[in-house]
């Protein structure tokens, strides 16, 4: 069974990913490859909640991800995965569509939503 650390390590190997972290929706850090995860984890929690609120208010069905674009091109992405949030810092020279495709594929293996692969939340054990 894949652990949170395995998942984070796998995401970190995706071409274009400079670093990542995985937190539970209560803020508990499960794994990270970034030096200062606390900078990102609070923002991820806020992002998840706000994206959900917007989704319900406007009538959309599912939030795939959020991104914070930066002048230095090290954009920050937040992917809601069931009761977890995955944060990714992008390398400034990466080709974004390829990186996102690879990340979505990996998320599809562990998420019970928006995927054909049915794996429980306990996958991150």
């Amino acid at each position: 069974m894949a652990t949170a650390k395995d998942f984070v390590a796998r995401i970190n190997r995706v071409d274009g990913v400079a670093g990542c972290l995985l937190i539970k929706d209560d803020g508990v850090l499960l794994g990270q490859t970034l030096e200062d995860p606390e900078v990102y984890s609070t923002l991820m929690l806020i992002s998840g909640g706000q994206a959900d609120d917007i989704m319900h208010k406007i009538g959309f069905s599912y939030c795939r991800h959020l991104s914070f674009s930066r002048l230095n091109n090290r954009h920050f992405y937040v992917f809601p995965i069931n009761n977890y949030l995955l944060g990714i810092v992008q390398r400034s020279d990466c080709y974004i569509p390829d990186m996102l495709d690879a990340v979505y594929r990996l998320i599809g293996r562990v998420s019970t939503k928006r995927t054909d692969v049915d794996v429980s939340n306990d996958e991150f054990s």
Partner: protein
Amino acid sequence: MMHLIDELKVIPGVVGACIFDTREGLRVTNLPVIFKPERLSVVGKHLAKLYAAGRMSFSDLTDLTLTYDESVIIARELEKNTLIFAICDPSFNHNLLSMSFNLLQEEFKSGGFSSAEAASPMEDQPSPTQQQEPVKPPETVNKSVSPELKQLMEEMKSALAKILGPMAEFVFDEVAEEWVEDGADFSRMESLIGQLEQEIGDEKKAEEYKQLIAPFLKNY
């Protein structure tokens, strides 16, 4: 101001856009009527909070993008307190929209929209305030917060964290800043609490918050 966002609508995949002011609400929109202005105002509020939170982590933040199954929302701060956001089909051209945002931002900064045009929310419709209230002479407003009041506000902020979690600090600071601008006086405390209740957005939780802060208010 409408012509600014009408130019965006020409971009393939862009459904429409809005300009939102954190103090005045929705200023202008060209989104289809299915997107009701009241809902867009709430969305604008959420986006403004999200953008501010992002700015706290990344000082070089440019755009905020929320990718949903059906649509993508992109937001950019035009100037302090003013946000533009566009709702697009998933197939839209991000680079083209981003470039248009850049041009629009320049035009907004240099075009003097903050005075004449921007003064009337939703284009030419005068707001109820403009219609009913005569212009008041400037009043002296007490903007300095006494140490006792500061202490009370800190206690209220801590109590809000029990209701809203990590978002509380940001929400409280934003609301309190505006409240202080209008006069940091305990006699106006009801107005601050009312604003916070609106931000909480849940009657039950708002009641819970009032119970939490009641002892602090009593002891003040």
